[in-house]
């Protein structure tokens, strides 16, 4: 059974005061996410990521289309107890302490009274807030609020977790913790759907990613495929005071760029040894050699480009994935 099945979900808002015109926030979206999958929803700010999440949460109503969560209609109240949601830049009742807030949400989610407070304490420990659990949330920093947000999203042990920009506003340490938490959820067999505009997070965590831009799903792909070695390249930086690139290197298919007395050359990973031999032969001083693993970024940039071909390709790919799932 698919965890999330989005069937041509569409949303447009009426804008303007006198003559209201519809503005498309989300073009018909078709997407299927399997159970146990970690799915990254990528796109620049304002692409429609939050709109999609709000539609799925029933906070806004679709103009057309529908979705099924864990096999149930999305407005079915029963399915809600199986869902956790972290909104973007969450803000909570600041008159409550973290402990009270989690208790409140646990009650609303129907966590049985017996074992409720144990569960709350466990969650507080899990996000590292045990020490400040009694403090009112109005004194919390942004990062601490994000942790509270994560705790409330997984409080009731949901099968399906939606996270809207879970890493935003966090320091490097906090980001690392969130990554670990998502990894843990994956290992527990949960389905995680999270939106982000930070590619490295997606690359590190996701099984698959979808790229959305201007309300339109531009493409869906498996991260493992997109970052596989075949497409990998290496970047070689070397010292060249004469500002010349050895011919042998260009013969290996390198794209070189001269900047100052240094040269930047990118060539296929397969040619790495041959290229190093060339440098050795020419007695050129090597500065660095790094594998280029930014193929997700390339994929992302390519999908964002407004070229109609890319759009078409993205659609086809989305359809293929949707149908295949």
């Amino acid at each position, binding site marked *: 059974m698919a965890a999330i099945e989005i069937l041509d979900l569409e949303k447009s808002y009426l804008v303007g005061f006198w003559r209201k015109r519809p503005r498309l926030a989300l073009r018909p979206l078709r997407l299927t996410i399997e159970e146990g999958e970690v799915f990254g929803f990528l796109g620049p700010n304002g692409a429609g990521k939050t709109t999609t999440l709000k539609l799925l949460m029933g906070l806004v109503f679709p103009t057309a289309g529908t979705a099924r969560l864990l096999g149930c*209609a999305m*407005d*079915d*109240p029963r399915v809600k107890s199986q869902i956790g949601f972290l909104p973007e830049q969450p803000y909570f009742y600041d008159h409550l302490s973290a402990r009270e807030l989690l208790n409140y949400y646990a009650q609303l989610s129907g966590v049985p009274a017996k074992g409720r407070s144990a569960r709350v304490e466990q969650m507080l420990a899990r996000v590292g807030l045990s020490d400040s659990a009694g403090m009112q949330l109005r004194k919390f920093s942004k990062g601490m609020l994000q942790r509270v947000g994560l705790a409330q999203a997984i409080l009731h042990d949901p099968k399906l977790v939606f996270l809207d920009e879970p890493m935003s506003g966090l320091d490097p340490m906090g980001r690392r913790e969130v990554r670990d938490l998502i990894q843990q959820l994956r290992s527990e067999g949960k389905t995680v759907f999270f939106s982000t505009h930070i590619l490295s997070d997606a690359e590190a965590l996701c099984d698959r990613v979808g790229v959305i831009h201007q309300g339109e799903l531009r493409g869906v792909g498996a991260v493992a495929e997109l970052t596989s070695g075949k497409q990998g390249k290496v970047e070689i930086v070397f010292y060249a005071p004469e500002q010349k690139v050895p011919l042998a290197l260009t013969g290996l298919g390198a794209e070189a760029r001269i900047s100052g007395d240094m040269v930047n050359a990118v060539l296929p990973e397969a040619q790495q040894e041959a290229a190093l031999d060339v440098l050795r032969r020419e007695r050129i001083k090597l500065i660095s050699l790094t594998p280029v693993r930014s193929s997700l970024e390339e994929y992302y940039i390519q999908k964002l480009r407004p070229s109609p071909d890319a759009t078409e390709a993205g659609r086809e790919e989305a359809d293929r994935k949707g149908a295949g799932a």
Partner: protein
Amino acid sequence: MSATRRVNLVAIAVLLCSMAGAMASLFVIDHQRSNSAAQEALYLRSSKVLRRLSLGYTGLLADIYWTRAVQYFGEQHHSGSGDFRLLAPLLEVTTELDPKLLPAYQFGANFLAPKPPSGAGLPGAALALMQYGIEHNPDQWRLYYNLGFLYYTELKDYAKAADAFKRGAALPVTNEFMPILAARMAQHAGEFDTARMLWVTTYQSTKEARIRQNAVEHLLALQVDEEVTQLERVVEKYRDQSGRLPTSMSDLERAGFIRGTPTDPKGYRYHLMADGRIEVQHPEQIYFITKGLPPGAEPPQPPREPQAAAKADSK
């Protein structure tokens, strides 16, 4: 049916049912506590307190109290209870809040003094109200007129009535009848013409439907009183000439004193009684008459039947 739809339907049902229920209970409450707004006048007699409470919006509050007074009078009249206890306090509060609200004084002059059920039976309160009004509006002839009218119709104090009309006649802006009324008070007090002029002036100087209706009824009564008086004089004359009382109206007609059978303003024939008195056939239909009644009968008063009042309202 989806959950959302079900909730919507239930909410609509609750909305409609509770709306109907709320209206129904309000209707019951409303009938239980009629005049409740007016009741307040019982408690808030001090204008100072009211002025404070109104936070400076005395004009608006005066208008509200004036509406309450009119409505209270109308409702009590309608119900026929003849209980106008609150009329005086309501008018006092109204005029204390806004001493320049002239219709309130006129209303008071017409309905505070007469005996129940046509008024509150408080000539003293009516006089006090007029004097208060003149104090605050010394240049309004209508107030002097109302005062004179009170002295004339209710208190029968013709000297004071003449004085009031005279003062009113001396104002820069006045009514042409004022000097005439002043003069008549001295010489012809108690005559039909004088009374008629008073009621006509009352009728002409107001737009208030209830006051006009009252004036019309008094004018009709005056006509009956006058006709009965004349007929009784004719009967006197007949006895002087023939040495006996007439047995019927046709005796008088044959003797050439009258032409045809005289009828009252409602179209009924006047009756000639055995002792020579004249009586109206239906005294209950002409209010306020003092003549043409059986011996010892009280002047008939407007009935509890609300027709006249309702019609007057709609104008």
